[in-house]
């Protein structure tokens, strides 16, 4: 029901190929000892080649799980119950394991949320980067090593020759993040998914990592999905934005439009809780209440409980997407209005 049919809306016709990655109606269920929870509910995402999609939402809204599911990297307890993930004309959820392995790390790479534990503690950084190369490219041992050192240099790790032989525990958080990025871009992927690459780093390093990502993006001409709960990061890096709340996408927009005129009350709430120079806000208002955990997910609008504008229509039925332009839509029965 939420499947967006861009054609029907009078918007310019868009061929499927225009997107590098298109996630359609993806749902994920986790089976835990206490029951099964659907933590991702019919999510659609579109990423155009060479562009950056910012995926934003409070922690626990299902951002990581969506991306992991798309790459077939879910934990054992998780399963995809519906959906398609189109990349380069193939559905990643349907192709066989060997083909998927060839794509992963080569065409699509991912940088995980917690770099410190995402690196293998008993292997050197160099080994781990070389492995990415070895898996997808035919290089000689020496060339592999040179390339790996080049990569370390590229992501701004000082003294790469020395760092090559060091182990993850000898790396700081920021350096681990850089190493993870080096590993991910080793084969010049077309799409890089960076899951909260700046969380848990201090502010100066955050800025450096973001800069690094945008530089690399330009240099390698790759598309980027940037997962974050920080709208400030989105404002800096993203071209398009998808806002997630409680396992669903609630709003999609080009970044400028999103910041200028958010349509979903949740997005508005998020923006209002952000300190800004261009908009005079008397005081910062955090949204009241907390996001529901998966076992309290309802069918109707999941934000209704916290929404000041909620009314009867918000409950019981899933709010339909209102398609405003090919890249602009919102799942709200009564979006924020801007007729002054």
């Amino acid at each position, binding site marked *: 029901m939420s499947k967006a049919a861009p054609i029907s809306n009078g918007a310019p016709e868009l061929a499927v190929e225009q997107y590098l990655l298109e996630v359609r109606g993806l749902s994920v269920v*986790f089976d*835990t000892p*206490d*029951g099964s929870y659907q933590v991702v509910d019919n999510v659609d995402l579109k990423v155009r080649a060479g562009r950056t999609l910012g995926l934003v939402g409070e922690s626990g809204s299902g951002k990581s799980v969506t991306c992991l599911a798309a790459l077939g990297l879910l934990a054992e307890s998780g399963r995809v119950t519906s959906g398609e993930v189109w990349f380069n004309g193939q559905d990643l959820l349907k192709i066989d394991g060997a083909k998927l392995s060839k794509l992963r790390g080569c065409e699509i790479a991912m940088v995980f949320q917690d770099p410190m534990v995402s690196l293998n503690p008993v292997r050197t950084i160099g080994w781990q980067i070389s492995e990415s190369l070895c898996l997808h490219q035919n290089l000689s041992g020496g060339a592999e090593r040179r390339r790996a050192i080049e990569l370390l240099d590229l992501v701004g790790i000082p003294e790469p020759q020395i760092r090559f032989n060091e182990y993850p525990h000898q790396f700081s958080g920021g350096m681990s993040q850089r190493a993870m990025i080096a590993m991910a871009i080793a084969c010049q992927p077309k799409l890089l998914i960076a899951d909260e690459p700046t969380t848990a780093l201090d502010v100066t390093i955050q800025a450096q990592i973001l800069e690094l990502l945008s530089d690399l993006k330009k240099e390698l001409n790759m598309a980027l999905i940037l997962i974050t709960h920080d709208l400030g990061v989105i404002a800096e890096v993203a071209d398009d934005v998808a806002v997630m709340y409680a396992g669903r996408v609630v709003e999609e927009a080009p970044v400028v439009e999103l910041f200028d005129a958010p349509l979903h009350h949740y997005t508005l709430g998020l923006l209002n809780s952000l300190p800004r120079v261009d908009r005079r806000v008397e005081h910062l208002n955090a949204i009241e209440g907390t996001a529901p*955990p*998966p*076992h309290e997910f309802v069918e109707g609008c999941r934000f209704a409980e916290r929404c000041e504008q909620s009314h009867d229509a918000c409950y019981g039925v899933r709010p339909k997407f209102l398609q405003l332009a090919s890249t602009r839509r919102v799942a709200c029965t009564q979006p924020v209005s801007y007729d002054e």
Partner: protein
Amino acid sequence: MATEPSDIESLRLAKVRAARGPIARRLTAWGLAGEWLVLIAMTYIGIILFLALFGFLLQPYPHTQTDLWNQLQPPVFMGGSWDNILGTDDLGRDVLSRLLFGLRLSVLIGVIGTAIGAVLGSFLGIIAAHFRGWVEEILMMLVDVQVSLPFIIFALAVLAFVGNNLTILIIVVGIDGWERYARLARSMVLSANQQDYVLAVRSLGLGNFQIYRRHVLPNILGTLVVQATINLPGVILLESTLSFLGLGVQAPLTSLGQILGVGRDYLILAPWIAVLPGMVIFFLALSISIVGDWLRDRLDPTLK
């Protein structure tokens, strides 16, 4: 996923309510529904405990009564007579009677031995954690010493040299495993002492003894009991091994291991003498292990 304990609890209660029938409901409440192996193991342990406690009422003959005209008689299921249901041994003693008596002693030694080890080890561990410094150093050194010598070798040497009676045997068997409790208790008390509530009651001026009794011990008791359950089969096996080798329980007393040791010489003529007590011990150790693992998974998954 950080599900609140209360959620888990309410879910469990919901499952309990959904279960049909009083027995099913009780089983579900205890997390036993569908755990057939655990249920069988528990039943077996129950029967063994019953026999250990009241077996003497069922004992057809005194366990020492010999009957030299009636040696090595096979059990009923191997064509023997109903006079000696499980047959007789080399001296014509009734195997069933000896099994019942031996079982009693094996269980007794196992349980008391385990209790000694648990209390001794936990006590030392708590002391070490409380005083820290050189007291702790000495304890850890003792642990090293204990670990460096396979316990059965130590036990054999002590029993052979120092002499052997039931009390010494129980004490020796009881020492086995003390270092595991000591380590466990030490590390748990160390972390408990860092907890806010302990710091809080301490600042209220509650005495050390009171703090340990009321606030620390109740928190670590569960883990220690689980550890004891896991150790119990080892203690039972240790006693049976010592007795099998002739250095454990001495005649006229008898234990399962000792009966087996005698039966070993009649393996061809009268295999039942050895096989029956062996089976009893094996299934007992197995059942306790199964229940211990289940308890651990249920109460304290952090224990290895």
